[in-house]
C-alpha cells in the first residue's frame, strides 16, 4: 500500500514536476550533464551538512539577492526573470542544497565572473575606498559644519551699534523694525 502523503508535500511535488517540465520543454532534448563532484570538492572544499528545505530556500534567496544578473541592468539574479539569471539561481540552489555556505558560493561565482558579479563589493583591498569614502565624506562635511558654526558663534560684531551696547536709544528705524517683528 502506498502511504498517503501530506497534501502540502503533494502540492510541492506537483509544482516541482510542473516547473521541471516547463524548464525542460524549452529544450526538447536535454542531455544529461555530469559534473565531476571531486573537482567541485577540490575547488570549494568539503561541504557542510545539507540545510533543511526551508533554510535552503531562504539561503538561496539571500545569496541570489547579492549576485548580479550578467545580462541585466544592475539587478540581481533573484529579481530577474531572464534565462541566465534563472540558471544561476538554480546553480546557487544546488550548491546550497549540497551544504555550501554563502561565502563559498559567492567565491564560486567570483572565480568565474569576477568581483563584478557581487552587487555589494567586499570590503577588501581597493574596495575599502568604496566603503570608507561615504563615511569619510560625511565625517569631513560634519566636521566642517561644526567648525564653521563654532567660528560664527565666536565671531564678535566688529563695530557694535550704540543701541546694542545701551549707549544710545533706539533710532526711529530700529524702533519700527522691532515693532514689526513683535507684531
Amino acid at each position: 500500500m502506498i502511504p498517503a502523503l501530506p497534501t502540502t508535500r503533494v502540492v510541492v511535488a506537483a509544482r516541482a514536476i510542473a516547473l521541471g517540465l516547463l524548464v525542460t520543454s524549452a529544450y526538447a532534448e536535454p542531455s544529461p550533464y555530469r559534473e565531476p563532484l571531486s573537482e567541485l570538492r577540490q575547488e570549494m572544499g568539503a561541504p557542510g551538512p545539507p540545510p533543511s528545505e526551508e533554510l535552503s530556500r531562504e539561503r538561496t534567496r539571500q545569496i541570489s539577492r547579492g549576485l548580479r544578473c550578467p545580462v541585466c541592468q544592475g539587478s540581481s539574479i533573484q529579481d530577474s526573470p531572464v534565462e541566465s539569471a534563472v540558471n544561476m539561481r538554480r546553480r546557487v540552489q544546488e550548491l546550497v542544497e549540497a551544504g555550501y555556505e554563502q561565502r563559498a558560493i559567492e567565491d564560486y561565482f567570483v572565480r568565474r565572473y569576477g568581483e563584478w558579479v557581487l552587487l555589494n563589493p567586499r570590503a577588501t583591498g581597493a574596495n575599502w575606498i568604496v566603503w570608507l569614502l561615504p563615511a569619510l565624506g560625511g565625517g569631513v562635511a560634519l566636521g566642517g559644519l561644526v567648525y564653521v558654526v563654532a567660528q560664527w558663534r565666536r565671531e564678535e560684531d566688529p563695530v557694535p551699534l550704540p543701541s546694542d551696547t545701551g549707549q544710545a536709544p533706539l533710532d526711529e528705524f530700529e524702533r519700527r523694525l522691532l515693532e514689526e517683528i513683535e507684531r
Partner: protein
Amino acid sequence: MSGRALKPNWFILGLGIGAVLLFAGVMVIGFTQDPRALDTRVMVGATAPDFVLQDLDGAEVELASLKGRPVVINFWSTWCQPCKVEHPLLQRAPALYPDVAFVGVLYQDKPEAARSYLKRAPVDYAQLVDPAGKVAIAYGVTGVPETFFIDPHGRITHKLARALTAEDLAENLEPMLR
C-alpha cells in the same frame, strides 16, 4: 568706510580642494571605465572545469578525454549575430589546426534550431547541448559568442568575449603547437 579684510582659512580651503579633487578623481575613474565591460582575464590560468555533455547526436563528450592537446571551446547560439560572423572561420578551423580539439557548446538555444543551422552550414566538430546552462556557468559565460583556449595541460590560456578571428586562432594556438 573700510570693511574687514577677508583672510582665507587655509585649513577649510585645503579640505575643500582635497574633497573636490577626490570627487573628480572618482568621477574620472568612473567615466573612463565601462561598468558592464567583461573582465575576460577572470578564468585565465585556471583549470578548465571538466564536464560530460551529449552532442547533438547523443554521443557523450568528456572534456578530460581531450587532455594532451589544445582545446578550443566555443559557446554559441543560432540567434546570435556575431556567432554567424565567426561561423565560416570555425568551419575551416579544424582543417587549419588538425592537432587542436574544437568543441562547440550550445548556449540558451534549442537543439533542433542548431541542427537545422548546422545542416546548412556544417562544422567538423562536436556540438554539445548544455542543459540549464551548467557548463556556461562553470565557465562564467555571460553571452555569446565566447571562446576559451585551453592548453594541453587543461589550463585556460585565453578567453575571448567577441567574434573569433583568424588572428585570434593563430595568436592563441600557434604557441601551444610549437
